[in-house]
């Protein structure tokens, strides 16, 4: 019954999306005013029903109802509960339903709380959101029904890919999806504003918390995903410039550009057409990313659920939405004045350069990701990887950081260079100290990490400059947010540069009792023992790491074997053991056993790394997200909105 109810709810939600779209469109073409009043409740109901359907899907996974095809294919009754629940979105159909749920709930929230826009713009926005939902409903209901029943229920399910059986799966995809899909609201606002030609500060202010909100989730999702890959893939890499990683980075870059340009539009009523275009690009890139991952267009370490037929469906959907929105932009944006002008040396000027660099990086990441297809069409098979991105994006990112030093210190409209220079000496001094320190004592550091650490020092100090001489209690939240986020960029940059410059690697075949030196640590391989997990067996290694000062810590890396379900072969994964210290992380992996020629003493392959400051990368990511969250709290004016809502209600009650 649950599955049938879920399917029925989905159809009802799709019908409501249809209603919102038709009513909204008729109203905007001059239909009766009553139509507009339909759109808000319909949007709210659509969101609630979709969320309920998603809840039912989770219930099916929790109950391990193997008569449902999706559960049978992706779950197993013996799986730990967390992975049963997470299994609901660890597959194509379930994750598309999650996508639709977020799409619907975002629309519902806009319908409930947005009071700053003109009525017709809001109706157009909600109609655009409904149009997006409708396409994805069609995709789900016609080609990826998550509630499909099997004619005969199997005794048990096929389980979930062991690499995905990790708490990371419970949090990483939903977080990323909220970010991806949250950008749909900015997209709909942009379409709505283009339809009614209401592009100005009010539109920018309405859109701003949504951009910040989705960008927070994108930041958290990418940061968490990077950490997950770092400890799960067993080689200590935290970013591979892999196609799937790249397509999640592209919406993040679009969001970063958008939240800076929307600041200009909201504050100074400038860059209007540009902001609208970025809002369209942001969600477009979310869709492109999903399409690339789902269609299996590019091979990747992370790919799952590959199906070219679904790819075609998604491609048609995308062509309608992105093509439609950009065509609307091309036809309407010409009638939108660009807004107020400004000098190069001004807050706006620095934000324009920020946007130029961010969009260039966005373009080159997209280009590098898709270029192998272009080259193949020209008859050459190539691979584009880390060397390309480091060479091309690296310098641009460092310049971007330097612009970030100047931007927050500049006044709006125009400023003079002397005032800027007067606030820079501490930052320049910090950079110079780091640079000389590294050149004198750092050994042979490559140029990019060297510049990275120097720029990180400059940014770290300069990012605090907006707080100097201010009453910290009266400093508005958005300023705090900006300072913390920019400081987070410096922290992450320092982590990346230090890790790549000073990493220490030791690969050894060690016998029990043997001690290996890694940087300051003496790591003793005590031995191994077999252990059994809930649905796997493993060999657990025991390592004791002793620091130079005598403190000792135990690390327990595991080599896990998951039994092959349904007659499949067993799968092996490596669980790295991490020791986090103030100066970095010790990363240990237990590899294959090595039998010596005489067949006696067994040795094990050990992979040990000392990664200086590596955790700063994710700390930086978290700081960026916290900064954006503070900024959003300051901008959303939730409190103020709640108050006006209450007073309005009160007035209605006392009305005659």
């Amino acid at each position, binding site marked *: 019954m649950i599955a049938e109810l879920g399917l029925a709810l989905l159809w009802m939600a799709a019908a409501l999306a249809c209603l919102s779209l038709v009513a909204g469109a008729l109203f905007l073409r001059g239909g009766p005013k009553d139509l507009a009043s339909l759109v808000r409740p319909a949007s709210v109901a659509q969101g609630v029903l979709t969320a309920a359907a998603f809840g039912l899907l989770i219930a099916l996974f929790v109950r391990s109802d193997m008569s449902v095809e999706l559960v049978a294919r992706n779950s197993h009754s013996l799986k730990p509960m967390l992975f049963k629940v997470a299994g609901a979105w660890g597959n194509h159909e379930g994750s598309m339903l999650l996508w639709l749920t977020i799409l619907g709930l975002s629309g519902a929230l806009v319908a409930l709380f947005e009071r700053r826009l003109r009525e017709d713009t809001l109706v157009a926005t909600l109609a655009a959101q409904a149009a997006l939902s409708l396409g994805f409903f069609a995709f789900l209901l016609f080609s990826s029904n998550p509630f499909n029943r099997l004619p005969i229920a199997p005794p048990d399910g096929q389980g979930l890919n062991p690499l995905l059986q990790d708490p990371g799966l419970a949090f990483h995809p939903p977080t990323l999806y909220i970010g991806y899909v949250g950008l749909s609201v900015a997209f709909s606002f942009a379409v709505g504003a283009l339809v009614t030609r209401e592009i100005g500060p009010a539109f920018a202010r309405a859109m701003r918390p949504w951009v910040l909100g989705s960008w927070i989730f994108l930041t958290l999702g990418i940061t968490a995903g990077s950490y997950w890959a770092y400890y799960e*893939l067993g*080689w200590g*890499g935290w970013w*591979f410039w*892999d*196609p799937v990683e790249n397509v999640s980075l592209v919406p993040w870059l679009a969001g970063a550009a958008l939240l800076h340009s929307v600041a200009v539009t909201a504050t100074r009523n400038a860059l209007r057409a540009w902001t609208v275009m970025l809002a369209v690009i942001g969600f477009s890139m979310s869709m492109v990313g999903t399409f690339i991952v789902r269609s299996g267009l*590019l*091979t*990747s*370490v992370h*790919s799952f659920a590959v199906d070219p037929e679904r790819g075609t469906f998604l491609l048609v959907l995308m062509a309608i939405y992105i093509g439609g929105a950009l065509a609307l932009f091309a036809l309407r944006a010409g009638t939108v*004045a*660009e807004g*107020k*002008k*400004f*000098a*190069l040396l001004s807050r706006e*000027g620095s934000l*324009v*350069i920020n946007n*130029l660099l961010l*969009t*260039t990086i966005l*373009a*080159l990441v997209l*280009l*590098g990701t898709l*270029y192998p297809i*272009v*080259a193949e069409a*020209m*008859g*050459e*098979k*190539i*691979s*584009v*990887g*880390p*060397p*390309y991105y480091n060479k*091309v994006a690296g310098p*641009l990112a460092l310049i971007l950081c330097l612009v970030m030093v100047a931007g927050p210190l500049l006044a709006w*409209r125009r400023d003079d260079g002397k005032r800027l220079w007067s606030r820079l000496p501490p930052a320049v001094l910090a950079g110079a100290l780091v640079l000389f320190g590294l050149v004198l004592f750092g050994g042979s550091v490559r140029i990019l990490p060297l510049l990275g650490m120097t720029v990180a020092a400059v940014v770290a100090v300069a990012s605090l400059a907006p707080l100097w001489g201010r009453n910290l209690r009266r400093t508005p939240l958005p300023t705090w947010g900006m300072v913390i986020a920019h400081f987070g960029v410096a922290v992450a940059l320092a982590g990346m540069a230090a890790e790549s410059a000073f990493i220490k*690697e*030791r*690969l*050894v*075949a060690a016998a029990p009792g043997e001690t290996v030196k890694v940087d300051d640590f003496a790591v003793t391989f005590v031995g191994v023992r077999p252990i059994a997990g809930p649905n796997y067996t493993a060999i657990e290694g025991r390592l004791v790491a002793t620091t130079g000062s005598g403190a000792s810590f135990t690390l327990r890396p595991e080599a896990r074997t998951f039994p092959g379900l349904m007659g499949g*072969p*067993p*799968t*092996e994964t490596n669980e790295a053991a991490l020791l986090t210290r103030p100066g970095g992380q010790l990363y240990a992996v237990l*590899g*294959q056993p*090595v*039998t010596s020629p005489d067949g006696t003493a067994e040795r094990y*392959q050990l*992979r040990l790394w000392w990664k200086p400051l590596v955790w700063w990368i994710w700390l930086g990511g978290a700081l960026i997200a916290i900064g954006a969250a503070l900024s959003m709290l300051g901008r959303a004016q939730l409190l103020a909105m709640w108050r006006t809502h209450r007073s309005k209600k009160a007035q209605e009650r006392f009305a005659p």
Partner: protein
Amino acid sequence: MKARLLIAAMMTLTSLPLEAQDRLPPAPYAYQQLNDPAKEAKAKALMETLRCLVCQGQSIADSDAPLAGDMRHEVRTKIAAGESPDTIRKWLVARYGNWVSYDPPFDGATALLWLGPLLFLGVGGWLAFGRFRRAGGEDER
């Protein structure tokens, strides 16, 4: 043809053990570093830019596939014998094509890849700075 497709599918999935595995221990230099830290650093840097032939988008430096291990052995052996990383890359490209290198060369087919970002920056900069110049006078319009 079907059999060949199946093998192709198997080869791309070595991260999952669909393909039968050999029973030989890894090659000596697959999981062992060179004694000379300078040479090891060179080998490591090179291995990070070479693509594993049987994996899904991983470098030979981060893969447990046996062929990746053998390629690491090949690279370390050649570096130890005094060959330069550039020679080794060319040697491999002559056998597997540019696909094996994550650092695409600059040629006719990749000109747009390398020049595209510069072009984008140039055109974008020209548009943006055009605006600033026009804005040189008064700021309202």
